[in-house]
């Protein structure tokens, strides 16, 4: 068995090594794949805060991913067309600057998470899963029929947005940006897990009534976790949109919410690096299997099934020989 710290170190090193190797070998697409994996991993790290620590099985995290994406899409669209976004009482200029877009994405998705969390946290268990799914579907259908921003066609942004001092169109530079953001999210998860807040949240997942009887409010803990989680996933959404230079309602789809959960479970629920391993493996499978057969979903399904049935605790669970938190 291997210690989790070593695995974490290896994973991060591997994550960094692959694109650098690809750069040396002049394989820019491998860098793009690594970027995709790191952005998906970051979205799942966000979900892992709510799910892995707080036990909140949200099947609606695509809402925040999509809001982050549309924050990018709408701001860049207005900058692209040189028309301010007119809200009636306030006109907002578009922006092509990533920092501005990121702040917007984080703010918007945090606010949405606050609202959805307030309403959804009244329920528990399957009802929570389903009410978050319902919110996801509302956003999905709304975005499809909202023609001002492309509806189902989505919004194309022809040139990737800028970051001061970087040329974001160069794959390795954009990878660096996304990888840094992923590391920041991981750092947040790590510190938060050890902090008083994380400890209380973790206890609230296991024994909410104990948390109450020591004078803490488990609802508020969970709500804050949901907001932080939504904000991180929202930021990942903005990066994902910039990676593709495109946003569309599929970012709101329930399948995407499901995929984020899949990523976490493959790696290991509640583990710091669970989502990272999951995303790396998922992106690799998608490409390897996708090339072998048109029917690769069958094999993906079979692999997922094996993981659930025989590898409780995900890959990190297998490698460390320790079960993860139970959600």
């Amino acid at each position, binding site marked *: 068995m291997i210690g989790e710290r070593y695995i974490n170190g290896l994973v991060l090193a591997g994550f960094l090594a692959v694109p650098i190797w690809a750069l040396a070998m002049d394989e820019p697409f491998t860098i793009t794949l690594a970027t995709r994996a790191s952005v998906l991993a970051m979205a799942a790290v966000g979900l892992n805060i709510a*799910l892995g620590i707080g036990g909140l099985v949200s099947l609606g995290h695509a809402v925040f991913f999509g809001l982050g994406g549309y924050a990018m899409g709408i701001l860049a669209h207005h900058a692209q067309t040189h028309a301010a976004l007119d809200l009636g009482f306030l006109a907002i200029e578009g922006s092509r600057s990533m920092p501005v877009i990121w702040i917007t994405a984080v703010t918007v998705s945090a606010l949405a998470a606050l609202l959805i969390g307030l309403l959804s946290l009244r329920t528990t*268990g399957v*009802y929570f899963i389903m009410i978050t799914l319902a919110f996801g579907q*509302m956003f999905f259908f709304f975005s499809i029929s909202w023609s001002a921003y492309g509806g189902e066609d989505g919004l194309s942004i022809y040139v990737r947005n800028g970051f001061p001092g970087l040329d974001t169109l160069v794959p390795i530079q954009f990878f660096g940006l996304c990888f840094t953001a992923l590391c920041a999210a991981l750092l947040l998860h790590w510190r938060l897990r050890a902090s008083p807040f994380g400890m209380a949240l973790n206890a609230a997942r296991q024994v909410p009534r104990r948390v109450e009887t020591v004078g803490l409010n488990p609802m508020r803990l969970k709500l804050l976790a949901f907001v932080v989680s939504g904000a991180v996933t929202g930021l990942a959404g903005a990066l994902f949109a910039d990676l593709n230079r495109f946003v569309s309602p599929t970012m709101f789809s329930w399948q995407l919410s499901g995929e984020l959960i899949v990523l976490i479970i493959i790696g290991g629920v509640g583990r710091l690096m669970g989502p990272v391993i999951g995303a790396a493996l998922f992106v690799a499978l998608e490409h390897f299997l996708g090339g072998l057969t048109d*029917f690769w979903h069958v094999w993906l*399904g079979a692999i*997922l099934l094996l993981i*659930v049935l025989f590898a409780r605790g995900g890959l990190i669970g297998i490698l460390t020989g320790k079960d993860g938190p139970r959600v």
Partner: protein
Amino acid sequence: MSAILIIEQVLNGLQFGVMLFLMAAGLTLIFGVMGLINLAHGSLYMVGAFAAAAVAGATGSFVLALIAALAAAACAGTIVEIVVIRRLYRAAHLDQVLATFALILIFSEGTRWVFGSFPLFLDIPDYLSGPIALPGGIEYPLYRLALIGAGVLVAVELWWLTSRTRIGIQIRAGENDREMIAALGVDISRLYTLVFAMGAALAGLAGALVGAIQSVQVGMGEPVLILAFVVIVIGGIGSIKGAFIGSLLVGLTDTLGGVFLPELFKVFMDVGAATQTGSALASMAVYILMSVVLIWRPTGLFGMRA
């Protein structure tokens, strides 16, 4: 808008709701008895429709097609229960969600592997096709009336089965207490397989019945699955009565919302904008209904209180 049109739309909503009930009943039974979230229920719906289309294509008989749908879905359900589901009863909801999500992938692409990428043909039998005149001058398709009848029949049978028969008593006992029912000498794992197969057969039946007026294609199960979940959550998970009322609520909301919301917006908007806004809102209507119900009653209309 005339009264006839309104009545016709209400009938449409009822028919849609009754079909949803066939899906939701199995789902809620499986959750209530075994505590399992089965995302793959939509795949069993698809299996039923494909089996019906294949058999109808080969034999030309709609009745045989329905029997095939029931049998194929029940078989698929039994196999899935024994191979996979059985290991998930004590697992966390999260594991159940993932495992049955994986089953969807396997079923969908597996079906495409076998039947190809194009939709299959399944039609209404001649003796049920065409409209009939109802009192009041309403012309309504006979087949849809038959669907309402079939759905209500199944609902009554289910009620009878769960409240009046030995197996129903076992099922209800199993909901409350695994140990007690095991102590009664009932083979719990056989009971579970049976309940799962029964739920699967209902889903397969729904798939075949609906397949005759819709498109029999890969992926047809997922939209219905989501709506069925909405139904059982609104009704309260585990409650057959809740599933029935939830089905009708969702069916009526979806149908009437789609018709009347655009009309409503026409009162204060121009026609084009009203139809678009109205339809956008209509597509969200059932989800709004569900969140309102859950916010008001966090365990659904007839769910058990925590």
